[in-house]
């Protein structure tokens, strides 16, 4: 658990982050979203003290981060940035091994970890370990960047617009991968982005920032149904807010016992996708199936619609 307690950063008379407070749950993805200049990156960088706070505290599992040398703190916290920041003069394996080497892991353990991570990120160790970053595609470089951030098994991973430089298709894949990674390693991830769709897709909680202040920190659905501020409504967009809300719930969560002659819908599909399928087929209800294709209930258009409005 990370507690951000009245954290502020001032440069001269300019206040970049103003009294930000939030509690970040363990084993979850928390997204900080805002326009450029909102202070979101500065807030993230105060967590690993790349920026020293002017006032306020950050506690990780109850321990004040200011109490230990900044470079030792950072070795315990993963850090991935936009444009990956890979070292061009080191191979993929050497890049990933950076923090384990700083921590003094022995050779065999470093090797095993590098191979494991390359496997997790669908990069064949035999092919990729010895390559230099410039020999990889943009998507591969980004994956190596995240693998490097995870190398020393950090409990916390900070990501600053990690997918900003990727094209939409690779970006969607990278987002799916991140959700898998989070579940696999049970990492606490804090991610900064300016893209509200990315925030909704990844975040179990989302903080909306503007002009240095955290305007609202809540579950994505609450940002849509109970915006605390007109700026939050503008950020989330009001034209398709019903559809956004539907995209936050899966068919499996809403399915009720019963059967249907309609089309089948995967339990993991969002209500938005399920509704789209029903509209397309002209059906009133769908059969929900689990990952093994076994029926596990049915879903009606009315039930879906009921989830698309507040309250």
């Amino acid at each position, binding site marked *: 658990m990370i507690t951000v307690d009245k954290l502020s950063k001032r440069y001269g008379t300019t206040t970049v982050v103003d009294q930000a407070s939030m509690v970040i749950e363990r084993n979850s993805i928390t997204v900080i979203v805002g326009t450029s200049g909102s202070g979101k990156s500065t807030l993230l960088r105060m967590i690993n003290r790349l920026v020293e706070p002017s006032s306020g505290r950050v506690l990780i599992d109850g321990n004040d981060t200011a109490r230990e040398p900044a*470079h030792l703190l*950072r070795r315990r916290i993963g850090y991935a940035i936009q444009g990956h*920041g890979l070292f*061009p003069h080191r191979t993929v394996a050497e890049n990933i091994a*950076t923090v384990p080497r700083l921590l003094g892991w022995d050779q065999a353990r470093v090797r095993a970890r590098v191979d494991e991570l390359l496997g997790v990120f669908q990069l064949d160790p035999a092919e990729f370990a010895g390559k*230099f970053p410039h020999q990889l595609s943009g998507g591969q470089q980004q994956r190596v960047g995240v693998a490097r951030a995870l190398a020393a098994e950090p409990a916390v991973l*900070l990501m600053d617009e990690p997918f900003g430089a990727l094209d939409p298709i690779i970006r969607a894949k990278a987002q799916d991968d991140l959700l898998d990674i989070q579940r696999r390693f049970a990492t606490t991830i804090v991610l900064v982005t300016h893209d509200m769709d990315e925030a909704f897709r990844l975040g179990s909680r989302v903080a909306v920032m503007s002009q240095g202040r955290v305007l609202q920190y809540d579950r994505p659905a609450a940002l849509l149904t109970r915006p605390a501020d007109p700026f939050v409504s503008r950020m989330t967009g009001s034209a398709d807010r019903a559809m956004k809300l539907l995209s936050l719930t899966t068919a499996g969560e809403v399915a009720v016992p019963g059967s249907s002659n309609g089309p089948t819908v995967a339990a993991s599909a969002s209500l938005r996708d399920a509704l789209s399928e029903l509209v397309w087929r002209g059906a009133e209800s769908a059969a929900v199936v689990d990952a093994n294709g076994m029926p596990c209930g049915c879903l009606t258009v009315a039930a879906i619609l009921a989830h698309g409005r507040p309250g």
Partner: protein
Amino acid sequence: MTQHRIDPLGALVTAVGAAALLWLPFVVLKPNRILPGDARSLIAVLPPSTTIACLACLILVALAALAMSKPPVRLAAALLGVIVVAAAISTAGDVLTPPGNRVVRVAPGSGFWVLLVAVGLMATDAITRLRPRPAARVLMLALFAAVTLFALAHGTFDHLSVMREYAVNAGRFAHEVRQHVWLALGSLGTAVIVALPLGILCHRVPRLRGGVLGTLNVIQTIPAIALFGILMAPLGALAAAVPLAAQLGIRGIGAAPAVVALFLYSLLPVVANTVAGLKRVSPAAVEAARGMGMTSWQVLTGVELSLALPTILTGIRIVLVQNIGLVTVAALIGGGGLGVFVFQGIGQTAIDLVLLGAIPTVALAFSAAVLLDAVVETMNRARQ
């Protein structure tokens, strides 16, 4: 596949070589080391059979230069040319020197030098076209140096005027070469020790950059002889005032002002290249390095300087080659080095003695350039 195109560089080399053979003296026979001598052409000097063999080889070289496009063939032909020209001058020395006479001088004439430059140009052009890897280039240099030194040690050129001067100065020669290399490397070493931190400081504190680089630029524009003169007075005063300085060998003349002047000249290229190299390092890589918990020192050495190293080494290469040349001037103020022979030769109007200083200086500078270029290229290949 036959190509009937005439190689432009080959045409130039052939024309220049032929002109040198026809109109310029291949050797000059002097009654002693100072008096002017008689110019002799290659044909007039060598025995007829040797002349024919020699000309036949040179015609082959010219044909290869004109018509062959394959770099290995061109290189082999150029090397044959170098060997023929060297053999011819060696034979000329043996033929023209009366037995037991140690006064007569057989000096290579302008025709020899132009011919040597022509085949040398052809060889370097062929090597450029071969695009050898850095290690191969160093190997070629080492082979060439080994063959040349072997020929010299074997006495192949002992009857030539330059080697006569060497025979007279043999004891001093080794000492002056060492002094030359020591002055060049010593000033470079101290300059790197100062310039590297200065460059890092200029990178970190942009406000300093203009002033520091501006000052070093002004130093660079002072002519070497003027700088030696400027340094004489303060260093002389220092030696007079501080006995310890005098004991350490610091005086107004000698090696001290030479090293100080060369040190000052060395600063600008190293500082400027350090700043340029650090500027090129990707800010994202530095940010990631800090974010992963490297200390400032680890970021500086492991990321910033590592990435800037090829650029910094390029600066060091410039300085080393420049210093090897400039050390020659240090002889004027008693600094020693190969310049001693150059200035003594000028004083005695003995051009052979000048060459004894000048040729090894050029060879040293050339070797240093090849070596450091190879190091820089190896690094760039490894990391792009």
